[in-house]
């Protein structure tokens, strides 16, 4: 966690630009630029800034936005729910799409179904998620008029409805990776001795697949999800942009255009820390579910 915090600081303080000049405009006097830099503490040494940054972080103070002057914490708090909801829905979609596809592919190894699923996942890898989003908007919102084009919607039903397309788009970004790995994982389980034993006991193929194989493939799926969640969180930045959802990613890109330093720094940090937290939780849950995994 300290590593992530320091890396974020180092990353953004190597910026060659001059945020004070950007805000005051080209015609600002050198004196007013220097004054603004001083009030933000940007005229101090890098080391001094770093110590102050870590100190503020320990007290959960993330500073104020250079542009609007409001505290970064409140800006983030207002938007984190939107992003969390998107990540949540996308995860649900990703599991709902991945598990059946991988099961079909694994149980029909090297036959038509298997090749179809693998072909689809190869195709999916090459599709930029923003383009998938646009095509989905085109089909479902513009032509079929089933779902909203963008925005957050109103009321709980409206919110959920507005999250269907974005969630689906974000899910598709990781589904190809998930399907590939889960298919391999299921093939291993299918070749295991206990599956042969179940079959010998006369259990039906569907029962074996759903009850025994899926249960054993659950834990690898969970671990996989944990590993790919970083990529998923990254894709939400793009998906929020396509669907005009006012979440953290949307704010990140806005702040980048405005060179709003503290906000960019804080969002990068918050997103990275949430990935670390999610990974920790999935590891714990996997250890809970599977007695074979021992945490050191």
């Amino acid at each position, binding site marked *: 966690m300290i*590593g*992530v915090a320091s*890396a974020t600081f180092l*990353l*953004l303080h*190597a*910026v*060659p*630009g001059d945020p004070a000049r950007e805000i005051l405009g080209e015609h600002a006097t050198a004196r007013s630029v220097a004054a603004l830099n001083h009030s933000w503490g940007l005229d101090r040494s890098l080391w001094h800034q770093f110590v102050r940054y870590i100190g503020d972080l320990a007290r959960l103070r993330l500073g104020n936005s250079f542009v609007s002057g409001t505290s970064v914490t409140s800006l983030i708090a207002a938007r984190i729910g939107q992003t969390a909801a998107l990540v949540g829905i996308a995860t649900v979609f990703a599991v709902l799409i991945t598990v059946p596809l991988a099961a079909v592919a694994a149980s029909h190894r090297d036959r038509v179904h298997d090749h179809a699923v693998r072909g689809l996942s*190869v*195709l999916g*890898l*090459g*599709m*930029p*998620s*923003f*383009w998938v989003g*646009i*095509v989905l*908007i*085109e089909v479902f919102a*513009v032509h079929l008029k089933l779902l909203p084009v963008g925005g957050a919607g109103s009321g709980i039903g409206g919110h959920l409805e507005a999250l269907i397309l974005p969630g689906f788009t974000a899910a598709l970004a990781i589904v190809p990776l998930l399907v590939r790995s889960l298919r391999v994982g299921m093939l291993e389980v299918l070749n295991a001795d206990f599956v042969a034993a179940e079959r010998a006991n006369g259990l039906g193929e569907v029962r074996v697949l759903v009850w025994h194989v899926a249960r054993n493939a659950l834990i690898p799926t969970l671990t996989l999800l944990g590993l790919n969640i*970083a*990529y*998923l*969180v*990254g*894709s939400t*930045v*793009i998906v929020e*942009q396509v669907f005009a959802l006012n979440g953290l*990613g949307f704010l*990140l*890109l806005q702040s*980048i*255009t405005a060179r709003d330093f503290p906000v*960019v720094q804080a*969002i*990068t940090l918050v*997103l*990275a*820390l949430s*990935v*670390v937290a999610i990974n920790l939780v999935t590891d714990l849950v996997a250890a809970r579910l599977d007695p074979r995994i021992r945490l050191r």
Partner: protein
Amino acid sequence: MSTAALRPSTGRRRARIRWRRLRGSPALIAGGTILSLIVLAVIFAPLIAPYGPIHQDLFNTLSGPSGKHLLGTDDLGRDVLSRLLYAGRTDLSVGALAVIFPFCFGTALGTVAGYYGGRTDFVVMRIVDTLVAFPFYVLVIALVFVVGPGVKGIVIAFAVADWVVYARTVRSATLIVRESEYVAAAKVGGLGDLRILVGHVLPNTISQAIVYIMSDIVLVIVAVVTLGYLGLGVQPPTADWGSMISDGQQFLTTHWALATVPGIAVVLTGLSLSLIGDGLADLLRPQ
């Protein structure tokens, strides 16, 4: 029998076996064919493209496909087919450039970390752990923000963000090779570390990095296009598939093809590279 008499026939036989394995991999052939068509079209863009990429015909904007403009024109009257070809030039060359540095860094750091172990390994792996915690797109976007948009920004951002997987893959392969007898023999023979690394370790570990580069380049090209879409990539008026899609998005209700066609170009490129990657992975996997 002398070895000289054997050599031609074994050489031919080996080539034949390799050819048979190549032919047995439809993925490699299909991917190779599509990719070479795309690359040829893109290289010869100045000859094929009917117009220049930024040539505007303001009396003829947003026209549908016609004999004069096979894929129509955009909102500034620029020929979509010509822009598509020139954009491919930009995206493919930037993607290729952006993937080389992480490949080299990652392979070098992974080899050194795996071979020397101890403190070197510890430091490299902690940097890897830290970078992995950042969501890929967030890291790349933040880095491009720091360096500034454009080709230089993209290349530097990927050099910093994307070497991690190469380092991990090569490191674990190196850990195995390090323990092998031929490396021990080379050490006993008094060879220097550098010669062992380059002459004995790398040839046995690099194939894994090469397999990964094929799937990585898909990721990188998609990311380059995404940065273009977000306005952080190659700057206009230079054509790039991403900015073409973002320009086309505003005309989605009336001219859907403007945003869809460049997307199909990206998907085809990605598909061909993935197929080659799969084929290569089969080919290089020890039998």
